[in-house]
Each structure stands twice: as C-alpha cells, then as structure tokens.
C-alpha cells in the first residue's frame, strides 16, 4: 500500500484535536452518558492516530491494535451503561455532581 497522499501531520493534528475535545467533554459535562460519549471520542482519536501511523510506516500492527481498542471500547460501554442504569435506579439521576456519596 503506498503512503497516504495526505501528510501525516494532518492526521496527527486531527487526532489531537479530537482527543482534546474528548477530554474537555469528560471534564465539563455533567451527564454521565455524555461523559461516556466523550470517552468514546478519545478512544476514536487514538484509533485514528494508530491507523494513520500504520499507513505511513506500512505496518499492519497499528491497524490490528485498533481492533483491540474497538473491542475494549465496546465492552467498556456495555459495563458503563449497565452501571449508569443501576445508579439511576437508586439515585434517580445521572448528574455526576449529585453522585458524591463517596466523599471524605
């Protein structure tokens, strides 16, 4: 496979921007589901970076690793959403600012 015509820097910058947006989302958002979506965004940013570098160096390892990342992301989402449902059942809210009973 020949190297991509798009210079690698664009991919990296895009990945970084996506990642930072994901981080900001995790920090700022109050809704737990939105936080999860931001975490997904961070993961996908990492995926993008992996695939870009895999294309550049001609190695398939990067693309293979993306498979793993996606699988883990899926599993994590499953568990996380189950947790959110359980929390909602007891606290009737998924606003993370109200989930501070582990304080102290």
């Amino acid at each position, binding site marked *: 496979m020949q190297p991509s015509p798009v210079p690698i820097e664009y991919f990296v910058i895009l990945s970084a921007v996506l990642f930072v947006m994901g*981080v900001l989302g*995790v*920090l700022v958002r109050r809704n737990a589901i939105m936080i999860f979506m931001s975490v997904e965004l961070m993961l996908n940013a990492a995926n993008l970076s992996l695939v870009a570098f895999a294309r550049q160096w001609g190695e398939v390892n990067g693309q293979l690793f993306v498979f793993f990342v996606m699988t883990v992301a899926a599993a994590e989402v499953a568990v996380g959403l189950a947790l959110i449902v359980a929390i909602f059942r007891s606290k009737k809210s998924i606003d*993370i600012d109200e989930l*501070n009973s*582990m*304080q*102290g």
Partner: protein
Amino acid sequence: MNTFALIVPWMVFLPLIGMLINLVYGKQMGERAVGIVASAAVGVPFLIALGLIITLSQTNFAPVIVNPPLLDGWISIPSAAIEIPWQFRVDTLSVTMMLVITGVGFLIHIYSIGYMHNDERYPRFFVYLNLFIAFMLVLVTANNYLMMFVGWEGVGLCSFLLIGFWFDRKHGEGWRNSNAARKAFIVNRVGDFGFMLAIMLTFWTFGTLDYTKPNEAPIVAAAAASDTSAAPISLFNSSTTPIVKPIAGKGVFGQTEQWLNDGTPHSVRFGATDVPLTSVLTLITLLMVIGVVGKSAQIPLFTWLPDAMAGPTPVSALIHAATMVTAGIYLITRSNVLFHAAPITSALVTIIGAATAAYAGYIAIGQWDIKKVLAYSTVSQLGFMVAAAGIGAYTVAFFHLVTHAFFKGLLFLGAGSVIHGMEHGHHALTHAAHDDTGAHGSTGTEGDHGTSLHASSEADSGSHSDVEHGAAEHTSEGATGAHGVSNTPIPEERATEEAFDPQDMRNMGGLRRKMPVTYWTYLIGTLALSGIFPFAGFWSKDDILGSTFRAGVISGRFEGYIAFGLLLLAAFFTAFYMWRQIRYVFLGSTRTAAAEHAGESSAWMTVPLIVLAVLATVGGLFNLPAVFANPGANIQPELLTRWLGQTVTYVPESQFNVVLAIVALAVALGGILIANYVYGRANPLTKRGNDPLVARVETRQVFNLANAKLYADEIYDRLIVQPFVRTSRWLSNFVDRQIIDRGFMGIAGIVRWSGQRLSGVQTGYVRTYTFTMLIGVVVVLIIILFPLLRLLAGG
C-alpha cells in the same frame, strides 16, 4: 568399673516423679499417702547414695561421670567448639552432699507429715519440697558449672516458693510472707549474677565448664608452691607470655593445674589485651564469691535469711540450715583448685566469713523470735564454714557443713515442735475461753511487754508496694497465724489469735516439763552447736579454729589472725545466745497460759528429732583427729578428710592441738555460764518484760543494738531500696507515662490529624478526579518528553 553409679540420674528423677504424682493426684490421695510418696521419693535416693559410698570405696574412689539416658549433649555447637554436656558426677564430694541432702531431707519430709497436718495446701508443700530436693541433687551431681548453675537457680526458685507458701494468710501476714520470699529471690539473684559472670569467664579462659572430663588423669596437688603467690597482680601484661589455650582432654581444674605449673606465667587473651592467668583466676573466684555470698547468706547479702523464717519451719530446717545455703560452701570446695590459685580471693573469703560469723552471732543475742535466733545462728555458722574454706581447709569446712546440717536441722525442727506446742496450747485456751464472755487467760501477761519492736500488723495490711520492709516488721515474721504485740494496751476484742505470737520466746518458758522429748533433743542440739565435748559441733568447730590459728600463727597469714579472733568471739556468742534460748524457752517457769497448756508433738515430729539428736551426738566420729582414734576398735581417724581428700585436691594436714581445743571449750562453756548467770532466774524477763541485759546500763545498748539487727535492713532500705524504688517510680510515672506514652500518642495523633486533612481530597465528585488524572497525565508526558522539549526549545 563402678556400674552402680550409672543409677545416679534416678536420684534426680525419683524426686521429680514423686513431685508429679503429688501434683496430679495429690488432692485425691489424702495426707498420709502424699507424705509417704514424697518421703519415699527422697528416701530411695538416700539408699542409692549409701550404695554409692560402698561402690566408690570398692573402686578406689574413682570419680564416675555418668551420661543421662536419652540426652545426647546438652549445649553442643561443634562449629564454635562449645560443648557443655549434661553429665552427672559421682565422686566422694558429691556423694557426701547427696547423703546430707537426702538423709536430712528424708527426716524433714517425715517431720513435715506431722507439721503440715491439716494445712489446706498440704500436697503442694510436698510438691515443692520434692522439687527442691531434685534441684539440689542436680546442683551437687553436676559435672560442669552450668549444670550446677541450673540447680543453683532451681533451689533459689524453690526457696521462693516455699518461703512464700503461706502467701494467702490474712491481715497482712500473707503479704509479709510473700515479701520475704521476694526478698530472698532478689538478693539471691544478685549473687547469681556474680556466679554467671564467673561461669562465662571460666568458659572463655578454659574453653570448657566441666570439672574433669571423662578418662582424665586425676589432679594431683602441685608439689612445690606454684608461682601464684609471687606473681604480681597486674591487670595488663606485655604479651610476651604465652597465651592460655583450651586443652582438649582436660576439664577446668586439670587445665588450671597444667597452666599454673608449667614453669612460665601464662596470659589469657581477651580480644586486644592479654591478662595474666593468675589475675583471671582471681577474678573468676571473686565472681564466684559473689555467688557464695548471696546463696550462703554472708555479709553483705545475708538479709534474706532471717526474713526467710516466714516460711514453714521444715522449710527453714531443710533449705536454710542444711542444704541450700551450703551450696556456696560446696561451690568453693568443688573449685578448691581455683581458690588455691587465688590467694587474694581466699583471704577475702576468710575475712568475710569470720566477720559474718561474729556479726550474726552478735545479732542473735538480741532476738526474741525463736526462729530468728536460729536464722542468725545459721548465718553465723555459715560464716564459720566460709572462713574455713577461705583459709584453705576445704574438708574442714565440709565437716562443719555435715555436722551443722545435723544439729541446725535438729534445732529448727525442735523449734517447729515448740511452735506447734505453743499454738496448740493457745488454741486449747481460746476454745475453752470461748465459753466465757470475758477476758482470755492468755492475754493477761501480754500487756506487760514493754519495749517490743513488734509493729502492729493491722497497720500494714494491704499497703505493700515496696519490695522490702522497714525495720520493725522484720522481727515479727510469725509464720503460723499470729502477729506481734504492740506497745499499747491490748483491748479485749483484739485479744484473739491475732495478737499472740507463738514464736516469741517471751511467751514461752518452762516447756521442759511440757515437751520433754523436744527439750532433750533441743538441748543436745544446743550443746552440739555451742561446741561442747563430745558432741559433733565440738570437733568441727575446733577443726575450723585450729585451721585459722595455724594459718595465722604458724603460716603468718594475716587473715588467719583476724579470722581466729572473730571466730572465737562468734563461738562465745553462739554459746551465749543458745543457752539464753534454752533458758527462755525450756527452763524456768511458764510465763503464759499458752505455754502452760502446751503439749508434746506427735511421733511424726519427735522421731526425726531423736534421729537427728543421735547424729548430732555421734557426728564427731566422722572426722576424729588421729589422737582420739582407735583403729583397733574400728574408730578410724579423719574419716571424712580422707574420704573427701579423694576428690578435693588441696587438703591441709591437720594436727590436733589440745591447748586450742581446751581454749575453745572454755570459751563455749564461758558463754554458757555467763548466759546462765544473766538469765538464770525462774522468769528471766524483767518486771517490764524486757531482757535482763536492758536493765543494766552497761549492757543496755548491747542488747538494743543486737535487737535492732545493727540496723542492717534499715541501712539497706535507705541506701539501696528506697533510691531504687524512687527511681523506678520516677521512671514509671514520669518517663514512661509522660514522655514515652505521650510521644507515641502524639505520633498517633499526628497520623490521625493528617489523615483527616488528607481525606478532604476525596470530594466525591467525579470531575475532580478526572481533572486530577488529567493533571497527572500531563505531568508524566512532560517528564517523558522532557529531552525532546529541551531540544525543541534549544533548537
């Protein structure tokens, strides 16, 4: 070969087995069975010891070293060349001690069956007694110093257990007993400390602690005087003298002899310095002497023995007259090779012994308690033995040890019989008088007692936080249920058993007619102790006086002069206070109704008295001087000296000095006659109930000082005990509680405080946590990429 000697481990096992039987089954067996089991556990070893005498004589007195079954090597570290086996030693010296211990012990066990009748912890008493016999036998059958030390400590423990046997008596008396037990244990410990150091030093010097190794050639006394007497005592030496190295096949004494008689002086290497062998031997023996002073109650560690009279009388007879206190003499005699090579220590020992003899003899003059007189008498007689051992006459000291066991044991048992009689008389009175509602007959004379030092017991019940007491309480250590009499007139309701002391001689008198067997045996014991011909004490005491006289006058050693003078004075005191005791207790008229109603004791108690009286009479036959012997009629001379001489290396030659014997006899008779003159009335007490010596101005202080024990306990209390107690209180209350405890609580407080502050980090908000994580990630990234960043910034 002496195969019978292989039975010697059983001499230790049998008392232990007896102890276990009594411990486990004691309560079910009943008094008679317990007493018989315990006595058999001591009687059979006595028979074994008799057999050992026979077999030893048949095998040319060769010492036998016996390994116990099933125990292969006790302390064995081959890589460090440390080999201290648990081996028993059968030789003439240890067999002599075995006989004394088991023989007198057997008689005292029989006596205790009668004495401890109806005591609520009767089996426990015999358990402790058997344990004591076992430990004492370990002490004397040991073949090395460490095993002897095991026995040494063990008898100290049993002494503690037995002195404090009645620790649960009421009205503060139980406290007195347990304080006395603790005092004995602690003072003994001081001595044990010295002995332990001596053992370590011996091991360092000789590489072994065995007296002799198996198959070692017998030790012969050095023919010529070794260079010890001329060697200067310098602590450090230039290392040109050859170094002492442990010799493989020889025990301590063999090595000593070899190194000393090599012709050249040797040194012992202590790391960087070399110390001459003679100095090391002096140091070893000095440390041993500390042990002897503690165990055998010499100055300055004798104060525990009078207090030990708080224990039951058989205990006083066995432990504090016949056996445990003689362990010190045994130690010196066993180490005679070492002591012979250390003339300075021997001189010190002589002076300590003689001074103790005179000191304790003087104090005994002023005591009112019948057992206290005997206790100080024991200290005094131990002083005799120690002085003899110091002067080099080891076998003579041992002879006195044997005869002293006989007559002092007899005297103590007799005192116990008297006390029992007095108690029975008192009980009979109080039970009879309970029918009346009024006064008891027995209290009539007790208000007369004037300058009594008996403190009121009620004052000190329960307030014992000190280890030792002050002055007055020591003189009233009544062991059998009664307390001393106070100065104030006794109100009627206190005139019960509490206020009556059956051990106070002022309450006695005229018991000769009430308790004839006790009287006659006690008289024999008194005459033997005073050294009257032909009783046993005459021969042994005369031997001691002769040895010191010879050492002083003939050999010119100054300690001989001092010792001779002091011992002669002590002999005078001995006769004086013993005859005083006879007059107070047995002769004259009865002074209280309790004495009037006293009766003779049971056969369990009187038969051992008779046996011991016989021994005290004929005991002199053990070591008759050659002048008196008649080999034709089978009265051998110097039996004991020759018997012990098979083991003891340095035996002085003894010549019987008739003049000296007559002088000693005259001194003793003079003491008796003067005592008879002072105390010769039907009621020796003055009208106010004082000793007649107090009535005359010249002798008043003599008596009062003696009664106050020359303030020995008070001096120790002021100088040693109170500072110690104050220091430990300060350390406990201030250092421990305020500083150390506060420090640790402070640290715990800091941890708690910081934990509380830090827990504020846990806000519970997820956002805080994620933000913290982000910060952490950024920091880590910076650290990882630091070189790259520097490159970028620079380039």
